[in-house]
């Protein structure tokens, strides 16, 4: 169905989406806890890959983007009703936790799992 919409509709859908390369996708990104200023209490791991999502949300939100229905409607509203309503944004969809070995202020050593610390996939919403 989505294919029908895009093929039947003139240019703006295509131009607007820009080249595939800058469509909403996951970008790997690695930092050290020293760069975050936390190396004085985090023992492990040394490197941390939070990753991030970046890119244009296409006019037709294909299923691979895991977009909620609201995003589809928001796209239509932006296109057909009121352009001041922004298009959906490219944000993380799924996360994974990270395990950290840290030293507390009182000297206790702690192993701890923090939820939602690494972006694993992106969505438009």
């Amino acid at each position, binding site marked *: 169905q989505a294919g029908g*919409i895009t093929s039947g*509709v003139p240019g703006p859908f295509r131009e607007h989406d820009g080249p595939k390369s800058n469509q909403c996708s996951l970008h790997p990104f690695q930092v050290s806890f020293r760069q975050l200023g936390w190396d004085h209490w985090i*023992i492990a791991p040394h490197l941390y890959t939070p990753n991030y999502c970046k890119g244009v949300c296409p006019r037709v939100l294909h299923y691979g983007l895991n977009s909620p*229905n609201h995003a*589809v409607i928001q796209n239509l509203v932006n296109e057909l009703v009121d352009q001041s309503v922004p298009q959906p944004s490219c944000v993380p969809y799924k996360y994974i936790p*990270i395990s950290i070995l840290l030293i507390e202020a009182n000297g206790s050593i*702690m*192993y701890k799992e923090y939820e939602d610390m690494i972006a694993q996939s992106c969505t438009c919403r």
Partner: protein
Amino acid sequence: KVGQPSNALMADAPSLPLIRELLEEAPGKQQRKLPVLGHPLRYMLELYQRSADARGHPRENRTIGATMVKLVRPLANVAKPLRGSWHIQTLDFPLIPNRVAYQLVRATVVYRHQLHLARFHLSCHVKPWVQKGPTNQFPSLGTGSSKPSLLSKAWTEMDITQHVQRLWNQKGHRVLRLRFMCQQQKGSEIELQWHGTLSLDTAFLLLYFNDTHKSVQKAKLLPRVLEDFMEGDSSLLLRRAR
């Protein structure tokens, strides 16, 4: 601003759960270097490597059964060389409550069951400290502990969950008092004259917690009515777009 120390950034956003938690846990910048690599830190590094990969991703097959493990070192260490080949240390472990969001699921005491001091070999074990008097304030560990598991040739981990749970639910300042008892192995020709006390690294507590507030799983499925709209009535859209 890039380069601004994260503590300052964190101070600006204390309302975010992670930031608030980090502000509570992260010691101030003054604690520059990490502590010397003693036995406890080495032990926790081994626990970490068993539970997560080099990038910090928790392993699927990890066996700790908790989302937080806290190593607690003994506060005081009162040695009492007894006559004969026995040597006893009284170790006090502070039980500091966590934020309500963490529930204690397991507690173990980890200790060195074999000690070698100079030419002497000692075999050691842990028992609860019992107040002298008619009724034993604490039943012996035997009731609340499974058979000690030999972690490596150096360490033994013994489950004392029931023992600690009883204390954990009490109000006020809670201290778990244990006795670390060592006996000189047979065959050592002369008696070990023990004056100092063993370093504090011979026994420590591991408290295992679970995070009780889990993020609510968002509904993943498209509501039925909108699915029909997406598939059945897209001509409506097409017409509108034309």
